[in-house]
C-alpha cells in the first residue's frame, strides 16, 4: 500500500506541453504512472508523445478520461489559477510542483481546494512517489525501492539524499512525500503522519524538517499523542545564521524563532529519535523496526 496515490490513480498533467511538464510527464509514464491526460489551453485535440490526449481544460480532461489526480507544472504567475481549475474539475489530489508562487495566491486557493474536498500537495514541492506503484512529480524514480518506511520532508534534494541513503542500505519505502518549502502548503507533516499511521504497509516514518515556522513542533506533538509507529527525524539548518529579523509580528504570532535547536529539542521531548547526519536516519529507523 501507499499513501495519497495507488494503482487507481489516473493522472492529468497541467502544462504537459511545456519544458518541465513534457520532460516529467515522460519520466512519470516511464515509471509506470497512469498518465491519462494533459492540459494546455489552446492545444486541445493534440496528442502528447502519440499516446496521451491533450485538452484545453482540466474539466474536459476529467470528463473524457476519468482523471482523478492532477500535477501542475505551469509558471508561477498562473499556478494558483491551475490549482483552482483542478479543484473545480473535481479531482481528489492536486500536486503543485511550481516554485515561486506568491503566498497571497496560495492563501486564496487553499480554502477553495478544501471546500471542493480535494487534497493539495505543495506548492514548491517535488511531489510524491510510491515505489513500484507510481510517481506524481519530479522525484527521481531510480533512487527508490519498495519497503516499509514512509518518508516525509519539506525539502527537495535533501529528500532525495535521504531516500538514496535508505535504498543503498537495503531499506525500502512505502511512499516518499515532499510537502514543499513554502510558508503556506496544502498538506503538512501531520496530514502525512496520519496517513502513514493508517497505512498497513508503513512500519516506520522518517520526518525531515528545516528551520523556520512551527510545523515540525506541531507534528512532534502529533507523534507523541497519536502515533504507534516509530518516527525518526532530522532537522536541516543547525549552522544557518540567525536572520536579521524585522518587526515583532512573527514572534508574537508563533512565540517561536523556528531554530533547528528548538525543533530538535521538541522532537526529543516527544520521543522522536533525532539523527545528527542524514546518514544516521537509516540506523535509527532500523532499530525502530527491530524494536
Amino acid at each position: 500500500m501507499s499513501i495519497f496515490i495507488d494503482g487507481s490513480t489516473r493522472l492529468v498533467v497541467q502544462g504537459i506541453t511545456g519544458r518541465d511538464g513534457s520532460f516529467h510527464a515522460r519520466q512519470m509514464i516511464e515509471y509506470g504512472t497512469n498518465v491519462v491526460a494533459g492540459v494546455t489551453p489552446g492545444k486541445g485535440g493534440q496528442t502528447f508523445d502519440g499516446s496521451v490526449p491533450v485538452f484545453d481544460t482540466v474539466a474536459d480532461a476529467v470528463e473524457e478520461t476519468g482523471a482523478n489526480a492532477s500535477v501542475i507544472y505551469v509558471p508561477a504567475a498562473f499556478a494558483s489559477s491551475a490549482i483552482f481549475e483542478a479543484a473545480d474539475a473535481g479531482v481528489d489530489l492536486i500536486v503543485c510542483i511550481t516554485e515561486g508562487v506568491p503566498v497571497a495566491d496560495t492563501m486564496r486557493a487553499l480554502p477553495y481546494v478544501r471546500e471542493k474536498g480535494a487534497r493539495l500537495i505543495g506548492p514548491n514541492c517535488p511531489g510524491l512517489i510510491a515505489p513500484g506503484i507510481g510517481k506524481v512529480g519530479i522525484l527521481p524514480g531510480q533512487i527508490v525501492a519498495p519497503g516499509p518506511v514512509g518518508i516525509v520532508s519539506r525539502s527537495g534534494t535533501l529528500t532525495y539524499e535521504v531516500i538514496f541513503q535508505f535504498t543503498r542500505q537495503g531499506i525500502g519505502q512505502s511512499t516518499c512525500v515532499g510537502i514543499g518549502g513554502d510558508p503556506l502548503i496544502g498538506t503538512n507533516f501531520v496530514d502525512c503522519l496520519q496517513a502513514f499511521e493508517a497505512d498497513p504497509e508503513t512500519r516506520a516514518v522518517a520526518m525531515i524538517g528545516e528551520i523556520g515556522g512551527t510545523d515540525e513542533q506541531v507534528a512532534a506533538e502529533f507523534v507523541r499523542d497519536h502515533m504507534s509507529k516509530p518516527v525518526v527525524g532530522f532537522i536541516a539548518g543547525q549552522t544557518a545564521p540567525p536572520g536579521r529579523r524585522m518587526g515583532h509580528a512573527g514572534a508574537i504570532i508563533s512565540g517561536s524563532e523556528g531554530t533547528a535547536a528548538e525543533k530538535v529539542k521538541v522532537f526529543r521531548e516527544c520521543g522522536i529519535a533525532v539523527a545528527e547526519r542524514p546518514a544516521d536516519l537509516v540506523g535509527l529507523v532500523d532499530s525502530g523496526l527491530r524494536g
Partner: protein
Amino acid sequence: MNIHEYQAKEILRAHGVPVPPGEIATTPEEAERIAAAFGGMVVVKAQVHAGGRGKAGGVKLADDAADARDKAGAILGLEIKGLTVEKVLITPAEDIASEAYLGIVMDRGSQSDVIMVSSEGGIDIEEVAATNPDAIQKLAVDARYGLLPHQASGLAFGLYDDPKLARQAARIISQLYEAYRAAGCTLAEINPLISTPAGEVKAIDAKMNIDDSALFRLPDVEAMRDEASENLFERKAREAGLSYIPLDGDVGCCVNGAGLAMATMDLVKYYGGEPANFLDIGGSSNPEKVVTAFEIIMSDPAVKSILFNIFGGITRCDDVANGIVEATRRIDVGLPIAIRLTGTNEDVAVEILKENGFEAMTDMDEVVKRAVELAAGSAG
C-alpha cells in the same frame, strides 16, 4: 525583501494612513538642513534592514538643527547587526499621549493574514506577548472577503475607549490591510501607533517585509530594493538566480537545493570544519550558473577549499561538471576542490570530470570529510 521605514511610510501615506512628514539624509549637513526646515525637535532614525535599531543607538531625539547634525553624524556609519547605516530619516518629534501596536502577518499556522493590535505598544511588545498574551487582540482575516468593516471597528474599540480615537484607528487598520495586500507584504507593522494630546492617531514607525515571489508583478515595490544593503556578491548571486549567504568559515559550499545546502553545512560542522557560505545553485542549472558560483565563492578570501554537493534531479550532473571544467579554465581557482555528484546523468558527469583531471565522489559524508581536510591542509 525588506524595505526601509521611510519606504513603508510612503506606501502607507499612499493608502491614506496619517504619517508625519519625513525626509532622508545621507550626510550630517543634509540632516541639519532638513531639521531646520521642519523647525523644533526632530527624531533621527537609522534606515537599516534590522530590528532593534533603538536599542542599538540608531534612533535619537535632537533638540534643534545643529543637534540633528551631530546626532546624524553619530548614527551614519554605525553598524547595526552587521549592517552599516547609510541613511537616516529625519522626522518631527511628536507629542505622545499613548502608544499602541498594530501589525499584520502572514500566519503559517492559520494559513491566513492575522491582524494583531495591542494598547501596550512600543519596543517591549514581544515581552507583552510572552507575559500577558491577553493584552493582544488577534483576528484571522478570511482572504476571500478581506477585512470587513465591523472587524476593523471591533479591533479599534479594543484599542481606545474614546470613540473619536477608535474611529480613526478603525480607518487606519483597514488602510494598513489594503497597503499590506497591495504591496505583496508578508508583514506590515506600525509600532507605535500613537495618539496625541490633541486627539489624533498617527503612525510614527513602519516596517514591511515583501513576499519575494510577488515582486514580479509589483515593479513599484521592486524599485524600492536597496542594493546598497546587499554586498556585491549577494547581488551577483541574486541576479544569476542563486541564493548566497556569506558566513565565517573556510569551506566554500556549492549545493543544489536549500535543504541539502543546509544539511551539507551542518555536516561540515559535524566533521570539524566551518562552512564559508550557504549557496544554493537551484534547479535546472546551466554551466554558466556554476561559473558564477565559483566567482562568488572565491570572492571570499577566507575560503580554503571548495565543496560541491550535487544531487541531480532537475539539475543535471553533466551541466554542473561542465560548469566546473569551464570555470577552472577561465579562472585561476588555486584552491582544492572536492566534488560529489549523484543522480541525473551522473555517469556522463564523472567521465567529463575524469577527463579533466578531477576526482568525483558519490557519497555525501565522504566528500564533506574530504573538503574539511583540504581546508585544514591535512589532506595528502
